[in-house]
């Protein structure tokens, strides 16, 4: 199929960017979206132009590097996938596709479609861990039984790939789904419960410092999340935080 691409180009953080239109042809519908981008870049290199910079790595939907806003939605029109798992069969011959970086104050742009998501790292550094030393001298793994339901819910929260689609989709650029997934993962397990109060207070404080917007429960994040992280996590974080603040 043949496509028209409208892509945000910006040399670096200090220059102004703009949308540039490109044409690509002979795109197979079995291609992944990023393979289509490879075709475009190959074309640009041949012409002596600069290829489009975009983050990507594992290309199987787990590393969370890829982060494109495609036709107004993070990771494009498909559900439950990261950009790298989006396939061209979701598009039609002749389509125009707008490709932009994830936009948020807390995700400053680096180049073209690449943004800096280190704010996510800092939120986790603020408390997204259990304070145990990695000495290996801990108690036997089976000495703390964890009910299956909690373990499963913790796992589902922990499947977050940290891509930032929740922020990108949110009209407020809020990072609550991400932060709450991290908070929930630990809050649901006995190992993490010990320092749950400190954790939630510190992580929320850091989240606020980073300049993310506030949550207004629109639910866009849950729908666009490639891993389907549930809004339940945000509610849990709200609870955890309330509990921790009144203590």
């Amino acid at each position, binding site marked *: 199929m043949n496509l028209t691409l409208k892509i945000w180009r910006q040399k670096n953080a200090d220059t102004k960017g703009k949308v540039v239109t490109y044409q690509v042809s002979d795109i197979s519908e079995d291609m992944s979206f990023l393979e289509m981008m490879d075709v475009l870049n190959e074309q640009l290199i041949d012409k002596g132009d600069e290829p489009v910079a975009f983050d990507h790595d594992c290309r199987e939907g787990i590393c969370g590097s890829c982060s494109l806003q495609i036709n107004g939605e993070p990771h494009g029109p498909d559900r439950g996938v990261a950009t790298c798992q989006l396939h061209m069969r979701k598009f039609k011959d002749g389509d125009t596709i707008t490709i932009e970086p994830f936009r948020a104050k807390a995700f400053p742009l680096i180049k073209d479609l690449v943004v800096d998501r280190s704010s996510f790292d800092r939120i986790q550094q603020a408390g997204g861990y259990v304070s145990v030393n990695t000495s290996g001298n801990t108690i036997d793994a089976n000495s703390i039984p964890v009910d299956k339901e909690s373990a499963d819910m913790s796992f589902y929260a922990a499947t977050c790939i940290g891509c930032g689609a929740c922020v990108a989709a949110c009209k407020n650029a809020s990072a609550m789904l991400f932060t709450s997934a991290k908070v929930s993962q630990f809050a649901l397990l006995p190992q993490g419960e010990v320092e749950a109060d400190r954790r939630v*207070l510190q992580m929320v404080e850091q989240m606020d410092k980073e300049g993310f917007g506030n949550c207004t429960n629109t639910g866009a994040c849950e729908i666009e999340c490639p891993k389907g992280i549930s809004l339940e996590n945000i509610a849990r974080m*709200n*609870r955890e935080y309330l509990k921790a603040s009144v203590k």
Partner: protein
Amino acid sequence: MAKSALLKSSLAKKYWMAFTGLFLCLFLIGHLLGNLQLLIPVSEGARDQFNEYALFMATNPAVKILSYLTYISILFHAIDGIWLTITNRRARPQGYVSFKPSTNTIWASRNMGVLGTIILAFIAVHLYQFWGQLKFGSLDDSLYTTANDQEVTDLYTLTIQTFQDPQYGLIWAIIYGFSMLAIGFHLYHGFSSGFQSLGVNHPKYNGFIRKLGYAFAILVPLAFAVIPFYIYFILEKI
């Protein structure tokens, strides 16, 4: 830290928004029950009942506390909302060229600020029109003498006359109806959202809360909106 957390953090603002919002939902029920008395066929009795009720609402100390809480809630809710809108705008200084929130959110949830502003404007008008008259009214011609011989504004007559006014009555009814539509949409998102903000989210009960919210968002504003039209079209003229 815990103290400032309940005042300054983003989550605290959610709690206050939810708490005041849900409190205002309760207020709506109370207010609606009072207003439904306006549907009683015109008579001395109807007039007495409504005016006595209005007086009770204005003078009873418990109700007074509640009403102050309501004013504060409205104020807080509105200020919080304005603050939210401003900070949330700042969180994305460079917008998207193409942004399709309609694919992942409902209209109401994206327009709470606009809806809230309409509602706030309505509240101002509404208060000026009735509550203001009751408090500072100078309408000498429509006074009501209460059971214990107090002279107060005849709120009943004032209300009925407003909506039966041959020139403006229908316009008022339409303005009220439109505002109730705004409240309806506001509640459509706000009701269940309030529960979510306060951490009430459980797969077992979510369906119920959401349905309750939708029912509330439709029925309560509808009942409010019916009243002015009923007065204009159906109620006996006074």
